[in-house]
């Protein structure tokens, strides 16, 4: 458990994003998860590395077994959610970008960081907000 520095102890919550290279949606989940972990809920949100998780990373799998996890997938393939369910149990909450972002954008070609536009960052912020809502809901019910 992490100390918030204001006297309360916050529950650590895992966030695992698909981060896929196949479509831009993967990049957006990656950016959003990073923002939540580094800026919006530092110390509370713990990112789990999906490639490491499915390659057999014990630390990642144990964390996902012991702590609540939110999966963030770009599309209905649900690579992140399915991987957690396969190796560590149920996810506490899940997010799929197709529920609230344009499919055309999600399924467009992935780009390097320097090619990202303001619109991409705005979408990543939107996803980060959704992740934070789930984190706060889980923490509220802890």
């Amino acid at each position, binding site marked *: 458990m992490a100390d918030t520095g204001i006297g309360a102890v916050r529950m650590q919550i895992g966030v695992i994003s698909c981060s896929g*290279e196949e479509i831009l949606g993967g990049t957006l989940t990656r950016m959003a998860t990073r923002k939540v972990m580094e800026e919006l809920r530092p110390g509370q949100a713990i*990112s789990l590395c999906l490639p*490491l998780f499915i390659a057999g990373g014990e630390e990642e799998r144990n964390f996902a077994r012991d702590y609540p996890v939110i999966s963030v997938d770009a599309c209905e393939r649900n690579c992140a959610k399915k991987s957690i369910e396969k190796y560590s149990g149920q996810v506490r909450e899940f997010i799929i970008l197709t529920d609230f972002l344009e499919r055309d954008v999600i399924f467009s070609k992935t780009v390097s960081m320097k090619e990202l536009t303001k619109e991409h960052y705005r979408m990543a912020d939107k996803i980060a907000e959704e992740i934070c809502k789930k984190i706060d809901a889980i923490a509220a019910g802890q």
Partner: protein
Amino acid sequence: MSKEYAILPCNGLDKCAGCTARELAIKLAEETESEIICPVFYRVADARYNKLANEKPLLVIDGCASRCASRLAAEKGLKIAKKINISEEAKNAGIVLKTDSLRLGETEKLLVENLADALVTEANAAEQTQEADFFPKQLSYDVYQKDKFIFRIPKEAAFFFNENDVWVYVSGGKARIGVTDYVQQSLSDIMFFTAPNVGSELSQFDEVGSLESGKAVFEIVSPVSGTITKVNEDLLNEPERINQNPYEQGWIAEIELEDFEEDKELLYDFNGYFPIMKRKVDEFHV
């Protein structure tokens, strides 16, 4: 290794090294005709990437010592053409990757730039070597002389000829074609070369461009069937290269062969073509 890779990056979101691996993969995909294999989706759906991984040389980019991408390649039984580990590359370059953030800083971006440049240069050099290896650096000729005119025929066993005086050099599934000395001597100074279109498919004996001199227009008849992959663009500005040597700098085009075994039945080897050319030379006053 050719200029096109199948790139399998670790794509990690656990360390800055993983983020750097991802960025390098995307940069390479943008600068070459490489394609990226999503390590996560590859585990879920084999079919999507198996063909790609087996068709193109595989470049594996690991982020850290966990070597997730290498492990995945091993699990799938893939043959690795080249392997890079971002953490090791950073160490070799005297760079310390961020540990407090996943965001790429200027140092990480510079590392990506340098690694990408080195890989693209290496790939281009390999492609040129491969290109040079495809066709012999030196040819040995047999010569027939009529008056002051010399008619050379390459003696290498991989050369074949059709009755229309067009040669083909075959190596694996690839071929290079051109006209023989008989054509260039008959035409005299070649002034125009009309090239075939790269990507066009042709059958044996289809027209594959033309040559024009002050004397005549010569329609180049393809000795093989297949798809045009390359044209000797130097000839567009300097068609006289064909007069200088139609077998070396004066080659016409390269072709991805369709069925050479079938085409070969209607072609001559050196021993078959040499007497035909001699007869033509003797009957034709250059």
